């Protein structure tokens, strides 16, 4: 236990005093504050004249400011933040030859990788919390609207889900750092995985669906419909394996109480659109969570699995100092 605590404390100290973190935090802070300010003033103009605007506070995070909303920003750049914090976790120690020294001390070997991961997660939580609070403050100043309990609850859930999501990428970066000797290779490997999951997963999902449950032409009406449904279900199942789509779907429902389904408006049929236009009331937090529960569970499972693989690889490696 003392080993874990000593490493955790040192890693946290290192992170907070490193130039890398200061730069990263400053950049994210600037982008967040600027976008929040512009969103805030934009909302103020739009909502002028409306008698009782409700659930306005959350709109601060979801409505598109100049270029993007905060939620979109985190969904897209979150992985990069995780990667930057983790890509040299083990390779840095290896190249400075401190890893063998660390492992010669009477500490449990897994304390090293556990402490590094937890220090990264702690850092992420503090960073996100700080940014959320600052944007909320900015929102209070520009909008003059105080969030109610429901909105605060949604923001808390959003914070937790975001930390789990970026934690996945942190675990992935640490895994690449364990597997590859040089820092550059591990950074590139994580980057490549991010690009694949971000841009090519949609194609990959359609391809997998075509292979696993193809829709053959020339079938009768009923069989055709069934085949199409199965194709769509497979496609959706495969796309659920990507943490990026899991995260963006679940947070879009959590942050927008008016959103009752994860499907985009374009793909809905006429009946659904009618029901959507009729029932305009907002969902409670519990109801929203029920909708995205499978997504959240999958996201947590993926993060845990990623860290487990990283743990196993680190424990089985042989460490030489030469």
């Amino acid at each position: 236990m003392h080993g874990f605590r000593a490493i955790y404390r040192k890693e946290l100290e290192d992170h907070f005093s490193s130039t890398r973190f200061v730069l990263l935090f400053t950049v994210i802070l600037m982008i967040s504050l600027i976008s929040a300010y512009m969103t805030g003033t934009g909302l103020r103009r739009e909502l002028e004249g409306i008698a009782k605007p409700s659930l306005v506070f959350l709109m601060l995070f979801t409505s598109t400011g100049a270029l993007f909303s905060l939620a979109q920003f985190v969904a897209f750049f979150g992985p990069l933040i995780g990667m930057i914090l983790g890509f040299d976790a083990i390779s840095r120690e290896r190249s400075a030859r401190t890893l063998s020294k660390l492992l010669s001390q009477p500490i449990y070997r897994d304390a090293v990788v556990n402490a590094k991961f937890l220090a990264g997660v702690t850092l992420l939580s503090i960073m996100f919390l700080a940014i959320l609070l600052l944007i909320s403050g900015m929102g209070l100043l520009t909008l003059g609207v105080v969030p109610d309990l429901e909105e605060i609850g949604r923001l808390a859930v959003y914070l937790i889900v975001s930390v789990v999501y970026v934690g996945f990428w942190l675990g992935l970066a640490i895994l690449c750092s364990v597997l590859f000797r040089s820092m550059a290779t591990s950074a590139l490997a994580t980057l490549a995985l991010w690009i694949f999951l971000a841009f090519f997963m949609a194609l990959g999902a359609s391809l997998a669906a075509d292979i696993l449950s193809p829709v053959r032409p020339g079938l009768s009406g009923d069989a055709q419909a069934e085949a199409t449904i199965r194709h769509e279900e497979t496609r959706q199942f495969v796309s659920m394996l990507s943490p990026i789509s899991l995260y963006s779907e679940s947070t879009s429902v959590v942050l927008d109480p008016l959103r009752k389904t994860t499907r985009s408006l374009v793909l809905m049929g006429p009946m659904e659109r009618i029901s959507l236009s009729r029932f305009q009331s907002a969902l409670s937090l519990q109801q929203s969570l029920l909708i995205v529960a499978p997504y959240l569970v999958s996201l947590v499972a993926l993060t845990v699995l990623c860290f487990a693989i990283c743990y196993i690889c680190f424990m089985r490696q042989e460490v030489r100092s030469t």
Partner: protein
Amino acid sequence: MSMVIELRDVTKQYGSQTAVNRLSLEVRQGEIFGFLGPNGAGKTTTILMLLGLSEPTSGSVQVCGFNPAREPLQVKRVVGYLPENVGFYDDMTAAQNLAYVGRLNGIPEAAIPRRVDEMLDQVGLLGESRKRVGAYSRGMRQRLGIAEVLMKDPKVIFLDEPTLGLDPDGTVKMLALIQSLGRDKGMTVFFSSHLLDQVQRISDRVGIMLQGKLVAVGPIQELGTQKLGVGTQQYTLEEIYMRYFREGAPAGA
């Protein structure tokens, strides 16, 4: 006197390559043991197995009565290791590095500053303790490495090329330090080096490894008498070693 290091029939194979071939060795408490051999003979692999950083393919390893592969924590509490190129956290000061190692060894937080100063004083670095290790010379880094090893008050110390790259003054100080650890503090010192005249100066016994096998072990003069015959002069370790090496090396090497 008890045996602190016991290797019995230890073999280590990496795939089809045998790095260590049926090694049997015993080292007593308080001994200064010199471990010699050409590069690639299996010296570092043996030391890794003794530290528990690597598992033998077959055979048994015991350090202070513990099996390093099965009971690594107990072994690491009493064993210190100074590798050939010792690494430090260059952006921290020497005192901070030592304090970190102290914490990792479970030394209570209140006792750490005093212990750090004690160790630095013992190796003669107390004046430079506030400097960043990145600014240290090689000799200073080696001495800091010894200070780090001594933080946990070990019973056995493994040193890999402790005097390599040191200036003459640093070498003399380092060798004196190693001798005092063995004689005054009763620590067992197991060190490997290519600088045979230095090994001769301070070792009680030596062991020579060639291609994974231990070809000779014992006090230097005994080995000299065995290999080169009884003579009136003192044999140098270099002569003895080269005789073993030439006999053991494969044709054309």
